[in-house]
């Protein structure tokens, strides 16, 4: 079918360096530095056009087909609930989504509370997690520095990503329970997957061959 360049949504956030390195290993290189102000960057062989967008927007660009494919963290995918294909776990950007709380209250079982107050960037996932366990939850939606919320008394607990646990420890927080493992996924628009099948299955094969074990 069509051999036009695939549009590829990438984000500058948490997983960019690892994603770029993985793509390079698969023989896909961007023609210019992402730190240039360009928003659309072709690759060296004319097979892809990269869009650099905010991490939370990758699923949206792909769901609407503005980007044929993209790399998005599972955290962002769960939160957006975007209707996209996700055939590959790229095993980069590894971390966990957890419930954490200040050391002082870590021992107190939140199930004994009438309601839990949670600060998070992931209101959808958090609400689902607690309501499925029969625990009423009050969400404090934040877009960054979530660790700060319990320190300042804004919330009792947080739901956030943890890689090494250092940021948590520095802020006197500890993990009370893991919610799920997070890693970056290759995501593909449903229509593109069908219409540009050949280019897309080539991309899947290239990437599948270089995924770290």
């Amino acid at each position, binding site marked *: 079918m069509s051999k036009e360049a695939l549009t590829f949504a990438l984000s500058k956030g948490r997983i960019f360096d690892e994603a770029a390195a993985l793509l390079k290993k698969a023989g896909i290189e961007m023609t210019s530095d992402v730190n240039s102000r360009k928003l659309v960057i072709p690759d060296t062989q004319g097979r892809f056009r990269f869009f650099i967008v905010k991490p939370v927007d990758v699923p949206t660009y792909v769901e609407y087909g503005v980007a044929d494919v993209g790399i998005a963290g599972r955290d962002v995918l769960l939160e957006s609930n975007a209707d996209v294909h*996700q*055939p590959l776990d790229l095993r980069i950007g590894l971390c966990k989504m957890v419930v954490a709380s200040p050391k002082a209250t870590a021992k107190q079982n939140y199930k004994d509370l009438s309601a839990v107050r949670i600060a998070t960037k992931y209101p959808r996932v958090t609400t689902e997690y607690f309501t499925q366990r029969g625990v009423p939850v009050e969400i404090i939606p934040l877009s960054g520095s979530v660790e700060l919320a319990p320190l300042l008394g804004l919330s009792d607990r947080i739901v956030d990503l943890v890689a090494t646990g250092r940021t948590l420890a520095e802020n006197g927080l500890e993990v009370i329970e893991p919610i799920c493992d997070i890693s970056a996924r290759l995501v593909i*628009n*449903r*229509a593109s997957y*069908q*219409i540009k*099948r050949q280019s897309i299955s080539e991309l899947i094969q290239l990437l599948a061959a270089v995924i770290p074990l």
Partner: protein
Amino acid sequence: MKTLTQIPLGTQVLFGKAAKQRRRIERTIFSVFEAWSYQEIIPPIFDYYDVFTKGMGLELEDTLYRFIDREGNILALRPEFTSLVAKSVATRLADHPKPLRLCYCGEVLRYETPRGGRQREFFQIGLENIGGEHIRSDAEVILVAIESLKKLGIKKFQINLGEIGYFAGIVERIDFSREDLLKIKTFIDLKDVVGLKSEMDRLNLSERRRQIILSLVHLTGDSSVIQTGRHLVSNEKSHQALNNLESLYEELKSHKVDESITIDLSEVRGLDYYTGTIFKIYVPGLGFEIGGGGRYDNLLKNFGCDFPAVGFSFSLERLMSLES
């Protein structure tokens, strides 16, 4: 009162160019439907709740707009047309000569987040062929869909053709609970191999079944996919599904439309409802399918009248967005 000027989420108003464009597309498509002897049916916008849940299965249940009338009956606004057409056929048109060729156009309502060019109220145009011969009527509705697209000036499109019986044959012999099957279906639908693997681990599926289900995810391509599908499984139902699919493909080939056909055995949405052929239509440049349909041989039984049937619908909003 703010409600006088505010609009409820999911509603829309068309005027000027957009209204003209909508009517033009409707007329163009209806002219094709008419040329194939399809007659318009105008069903009510609401009916008893059970008509829709029995009709479309539970996949749409959460999206229904329900309400209660003064006698306490539960009613719902139509989320699709097929159930209503089936009910009318069973109650009013059962003794008419077959196949019955019926077409419709109008708004449907689903309580879901507006996305993909669709509001909560959106428009469908489509048709149903009831009581027709199996492969021949499947081919007919696909040919009508193709002709409609061409008449609208849409030259490039792709029809993904599958057979739900293939997947049904595979899962039928595995003792899945309703919830487990739903999870497996969702993972296949998202082509989420990672989730699929861990779910199959949890369910303790045999190695052979795991292989079959994992292969299913990527069973899409030219007509050779039918052969690949055959080698993969041994159950009779799946093989019968592939025989049907092959006959249908040959029939479409004899009409020289096979270049726009892709065989897709990974399509598993609509398992509650479709019984045979399923298809989706994609157009380059649009990230969503613009229409689709399939065979639903068990639906009319719910209304007390046992006829096989096949149909499809287009999303008018998405057809409009293609032109702009």
